[in-house]
């Protein structure tokens, strides 16, 4: 049998006292799609960083095509045929797809007035597209492209060297819609047929079953399982349990008891804002979680921001606790008791170089200080410690800048900020993007807990998440609200409503 595309033997890596990887053996066959799974901190990122030459291994051997290699930096790895597409690929926004693909190796005409030969670039890109057929207009600039087109450009850029045998994709689907995902998967399939091995990291387990041939699971710096996806299917194994190492009964907490549902806390009628969304209406009760399923471009993000006063509405009404309000800024919305856990926590949610205490108290500085405005340092620290314990913040270090926490723990800090703000209505937008399954269950549990004393709205482009967590759901499709007249909502109905904009009959 031919040597595998890539083999790693007994790889170990330490960071100070922490064993990030211990004794990892790994095989990547030629032309297979291999998913790498594990919760945050399980070691999968460290592993791919070693493969792609960003970190150096402490011990072990990496072989490509049967020969041991030593990668000092990413250039070395690429020379040995291992290319990596990072989670947020760095592309030049004002350059076309062609130019980005051949960035740094443009065909320069020699001489004093050397310049980029655009004709030659498109010819070479054409050759690349012939090898990996995918429907994309590369003459557009990156700024004009959709998320999936950018991902494709990044992949083509990685494959521009003809000798690449192994392609590593780090969470390529985290920003993609359902429709876009299928486009990406088609390209991955083409690569597989072209004999390229794809190593694929994701948090979304259903995708693994869809696209991968084989999967490996990391836990606590060790590889705990490596098997064919067919085997997982045949034995009906739970990937979440493999990742966590414990039986996972319910990611989602139980639904609300009918008698736990209280009075209407937020009533929205015919809310309309320009091209973003129109005529949205519902009543949210204390004690329940309302789920809104909407893909990118559905208007869900804008709707959340409109409720929070960050974008203006044109018509319609919002009433909180029976009183009509028209928040013109998040400041006014917060005063009325509405709190938004924004979709992009690093940009919209956190002051990254500040401590947890600073961030947790930021949305309610009035509570955090005396009447004269003097901060209650001991009290704030105590409250933050309490939230940190309740949310199982890890590490439980409140003096560390929040940039040092993992995605899931940063999200916990944003939630703690909401708890400190003591709102009546909590709006979660894409609450679990980039959050591993363990922290995810914790966050869902917290939403349920919050719903006992407040109204909770969860908006997400993950249909299973919306369906799993919410007591009632509707979909947003191109700014239209699509809810079943009988109030009954199955997962498939919700999915169809959000993707196609129509109610199916099942």
């Amino acid at each position, binding site marked *: 049998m031919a040597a595998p595309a890539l083999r790693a033997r007994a790889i170990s890596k330490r960071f100070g006292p922490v064993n990030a990887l211990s004794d990892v053996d790994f095989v990547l066959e030629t032309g297979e799609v291999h998913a790498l799974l594990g919760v945050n901190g399980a070691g999968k990122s460290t592993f791919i960083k070693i493969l792609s030459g960003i970190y150096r291994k402490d011990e072990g051997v990496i072989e490509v095509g049967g020969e041991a290699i030593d990668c000092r930096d990413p250039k070395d790895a690429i020379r040995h045929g291992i290319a990596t597409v990072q989670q947020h690929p760095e592309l030049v926004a004002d350059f076309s797809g062609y130019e980005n693909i051949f960035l740094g190796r443009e065909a320069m005409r020699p001489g004093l007035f050397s310049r980029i030969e655009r004709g030659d670039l498109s010819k070479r890109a054409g050759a690349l597209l012939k090898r990996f057929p995918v429907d994309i207009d590369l003459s557009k600039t990156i700024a004009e492209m959709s998320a999936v087109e950018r991902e494709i450009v990044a992949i083509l850029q990685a494959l521009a060297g003809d000798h690449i045998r192994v392609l590593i994709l780090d969470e390529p689907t985290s920003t993609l819609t359902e429709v876009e995902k299928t486009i990406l998967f088609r390209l991955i399939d083409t690569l597989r047929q072209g004999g390229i091995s794809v190593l694929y990291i994701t948090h979304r387990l259903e995708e693994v079953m869809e696209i991968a041939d084989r999967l490996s699971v990391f836990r606590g710096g060790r590889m705990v399982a490596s098997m064919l996806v067919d085997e997982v299917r045949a034995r009906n194994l739970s990937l979440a349990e493999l990742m966590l190492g414990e039986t996972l009964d319910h990611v989602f907490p139980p639904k609300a008891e009918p008698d736990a549902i209280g009075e209407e806390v937020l009533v929205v009628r015919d809310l309309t804002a320009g091209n973003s969304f129109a005529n949205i209406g519902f009543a949210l009760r204390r004690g329940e979680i309302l789920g809104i399923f909407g893909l990118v471009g559905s208007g869900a993000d804008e709707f959340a921001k409109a409720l929070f006063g960050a974008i203006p509405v044109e018509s319609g009404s919002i009433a909180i606790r029976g009183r009509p309000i028209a928040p013109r800024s998040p400041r006014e919305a917060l005063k009325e008791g509405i709190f938004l856990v924004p979709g992009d926590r690093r940009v919209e949610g956190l002051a990254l170089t500040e401590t947890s205490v600073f961030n947790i108290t930021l949305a309610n500085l009035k509570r955090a200080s005396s009447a004269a405005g003097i*901060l209650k340092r001991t009290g704030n620290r105590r409250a933050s410690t309490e939230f940190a314990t309740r949310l199982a913040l890890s590490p439980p270090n409140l003096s560390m800048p929040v940039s040092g926490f993992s995605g899931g723990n940063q999200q916990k800090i944003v939630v703690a900020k909401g708890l400190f703000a003591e709102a009546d209505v909590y709006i979660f937008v894409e609450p679990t993007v980039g959050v591993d399954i363990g922290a995810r269950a914790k966050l869902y549990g917290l939403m349920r807990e919050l719903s006992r004393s407040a109204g909770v709205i969860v908006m997400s482009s993950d249909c299973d998440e919306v369906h799993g967590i919410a007591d009632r759901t509707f979909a947003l499709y191109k700014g239209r609200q699509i809810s079943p007249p009988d109030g009954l909502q199955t997962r498939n109905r919700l999915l169809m409503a959000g993707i196609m904009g129509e109610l199916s009959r099942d």
Partner: protein
Amino acid sequence: MTRSLVLPAGSGRFIAFLLLVVVVATAFTLAEPRFLSTQNISAVTRHMAANGLAALGLTLVVIVRKFDLSFAGTACFAAMTIGYLIALGQPLWISIPAGILVGAVIGAFNGVAISYFRLPDIVTTIATGSIAAGLAFVYSNGRTIFQNFMTSGILDLNDARVFGYSLSFVFLLGLYAVAWFFMHRTRYGASFYATGENPVAAYYSGVPIKHYTMLAFVACGMTSVFAVLLILAESGTADTNEGANLLMPAYAGVFLGTALLGRTSVLATLAGTFLITMLLDGFSLLGIPFYYSDGVVSAILLAGVVFFDARLRDLLGDIGTYLQPRSAKKETRA
């Protein structure tokens, strides 16, 4: 062994700063023994008062991640306003507040233009600063104003002493103490930091970021007038050059302080200003002309920023590990 002494976080940088002060002071004393004379120390504290006051308002502007290049021009216009009013025979309780008002109004203009109308900070403040510096010529056609200065009492600001220290230095320390408390112990200070650190997240947290951006510029305009007031009191005249020497020491104080203590803060600016003032004073004591000493201080500022900036230091550290022989690298890892 090394762990026996546990210091609070950030004290390493503070100790480094103190060592630097000792080294600089020793070097100057060796070159010119008068450096430690009472007379010189009193001069250092007076100069530090002017530099430090100008740097204090700038600190707020830098904390909200903006730049103000207008305050030298603002200070000049305010100085001529004060001089003009004194020459007219107005009492100090009218002329000085009028000058401070000029600073506040120009600061507010900058702040409104930059936060509410989203004009670019650097261009806007260069423009308002030039306009203010131009307006300074209007009162006297550019001639120096000195009438009534001797009798107005403004010179007392320079000579007055409190507990044996010059009034200006005590005022500086008092204002810094208030500013420290305001910036680091109240919700308003936290809002300034949040505005600068991540304006979007601050806005989503209900912080009125535009107000705070504007207030920072108002503070900057006002403290630059405080600074120039001390210069007026020392020179006994007002001329259209006033304030021109405030810009570089103020920026140097803020950014060297940031580099030394790791983050822009009231204490960092005080530390940076102290070091800068000491250097400028030492050079002038040694008879080095200002056009050299300014260059040297600016070079030290650049060096300080480079060596104390965390990212750059990491970069230098990385280069260091590459330069090490391979066996040594293994040892450091173990």
